[in-house]
């Protein structure tokens, strides 16, 4: 039995040298995170279902008009933001409060696998929402979206998941888990409204038009709208820079709250 101990002790460093193992864990973690979200109807139906339902109402009411095209891009942004805030902000808050995160942390699971799987799942949901809306717009919505523009919008949905996934991490450490859904709605519904996800910012009250450019969601909307030709294509560098800065800010805020909560746990 003693020699078993010796073998195990020596084997451990050799095993950790297997460079592909962390990657395999990330893939498996992502696979199950995604499967879990798909099966959780409260999540998948609201995150994908709401933009689809609204498109069937408002997109189809404007069939063939520019508004039908506008809403493909706007609702994609809406889906991306809600997939991230509910998918990370809410689930991480719950998993933390219910002790599941502790069990994962006590295991040798690499932390990046847990966090990476959450981000990747959000990106996957963003992609699904973009594809569904593009198909709806192109068929029932009666608008023309070229393959190139569709691909661009889908790519934006994926890339746009990253800043809001970062926001999700911060929100997870901010909201009390029991009131999570309410608080997240309070955060993202006004953001969606003021950033032009549902209607052009130009039709909003004047003061909101002034506030909008300060919101990260506004910049995501501008990028997505430009991809389908519903916003000026200039100033893209600025929009991306704002989203990049927002990502860094959110990750830093999440890290600080995380470290603080660790100290108190």
């Amino acid at each position, binding site marked *: *039995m*003693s*020699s*078993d*101990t*010796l073998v*195990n*002790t020596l*084997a*451990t*460093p050799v*095993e*950790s040298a*297997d460079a592909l*193992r962390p990657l*395999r*864990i990330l893939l*498996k*973690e992502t696979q*199950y995170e995604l*499967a*879990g*979200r*798909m*099966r*959780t109807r409260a999540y998948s139906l609201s995150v994908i279902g709401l933009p689809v339902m609204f498109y069937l109402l408002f997109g189809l009411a404007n069939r063939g008009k520019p508004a039908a095209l506008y809403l493909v891009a706007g609702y994609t942004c809406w889906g991306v933001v809600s997939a991230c805030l509910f998918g990370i902000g809410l689930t991480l808050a*719950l*998993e933390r*409060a*219910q*002790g*599941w995160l*502790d*069990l994962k*942390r*006590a*295991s*040798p*699971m*690499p932390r990046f696998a847990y966090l990476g799987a959450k981000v990747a799942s959000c990106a996957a949901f963003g992609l699904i929402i973009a594809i569904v809306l593009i198909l709806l717009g192109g068929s029932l919505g009666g608008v023309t979206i070229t393959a190139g523009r569709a691909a661009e919008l889908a790519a934006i949905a994926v890339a746009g998941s990253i800043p809001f996934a970062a926001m999700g991490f911060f929100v997870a450490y901010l909201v009390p888990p029991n009131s999570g859904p309410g608080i997240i709605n309070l955060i993202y519904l006004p953001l969606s409204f003021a950033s032009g996800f549902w209607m052009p910012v130009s039709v909003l009250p004047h003061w909101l038009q002034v506030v909008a450019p300060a919101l990260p969601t506004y910049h995501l909307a501008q990028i997505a709208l430009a991809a389908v030709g519903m916003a000026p294509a200039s100033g893209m560098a600025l929009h991306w820079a704002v989203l990049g800065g927002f990502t860094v800010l959110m990750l830093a805020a999440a890290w600080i709250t995380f470290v603080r909560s*660790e100290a*108190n*746990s």
Partner: protein
Amino acid sequence: MSMTLSAPLAAPAHRAAAPAGVLSPSAAAPSAVAASCVATLESAVKRYGKTEALRGLDLTLRRGEVVALLGPNGAGKTTTVRLLLGLISPDAGRVRVLGRDPRTTAARTRIGAMLQVARVPEALLVREHIALFRSYYPHPLAAAEVVTRAGLEGLEGRRFGELSGGQRQRVLFGLALCGDPDLVFLDEPTVGLDLQSRRRLWEEVRALAARGKSVLLTTHYLEEADALANRVVVIDKGRLLREGTPAEIRHGVSGRRIRCVTRLDADYLSALPSVTSLQRDREAVIIYAERPEEVVRRVLLEDDSLHGLEVAAAPLEDAFLALTGGDAHQTQPE
């Protein structure tokens, strides 16, 4: 940590060596003990704000040993487990697990934990939860083996959310075994289990120890500590109160326990030779006595209506309550 290949592994030998190693943690432990140590807390202090959860706790876990950590709520049991798992860091003192900092992946690869988890992602199947946890370890236990040991046969294809409370506990136990760990932490493992599942889990804990694995168990069921543990560690208010085999702890409460329904009054009973204390229990009285035979002989002579007589060793529960200052029979002041 020195790697003495000829380290003695028989549990009794360690038990004999225990007091020296445990009571004088600052002194260098003898190398034979060090080699068999799988986890240690040395003068661990943990504060939450102004409250001190642990006030210099020393704890040693040895190979092949099942240690039960007992204490009332707020004694510091969960804090102790969280320190040993590296989920929190001590404010003072030292924590070592398998000769390493418990926060290292190398240490975590060889430990398994069953924590009090209110909810687990419910949409995943039992099989998927096991597959995911197994993927974290370089040498996991075979999935079928995890299923058998945790008693999950027939539940593999069920979603976690569909399981009963006891079944969920068994899944969590299974997850603790996925990495074929050398050291297993079980925090209140049998809460919500039916009698049959509890016995089965006990068997598995014994089997772990028989394979040379170490188990640290926290529990509210003293019967469980009595049935499983080689060593019981009683803590309260973040300090070590007593440690020893369940029998040694029980002996902390002197004498045995006589329960009977009698007309005799309390004054008469407490004046009988060797009686240490009395307690009312519904219609009956419980008498603690050093020499129960003598007491029984006297009360039977004095009261021919006496009935419902039972004589038993004082249970671990009484010792526990006496140690932690609970409302029960107290040992006589020394």
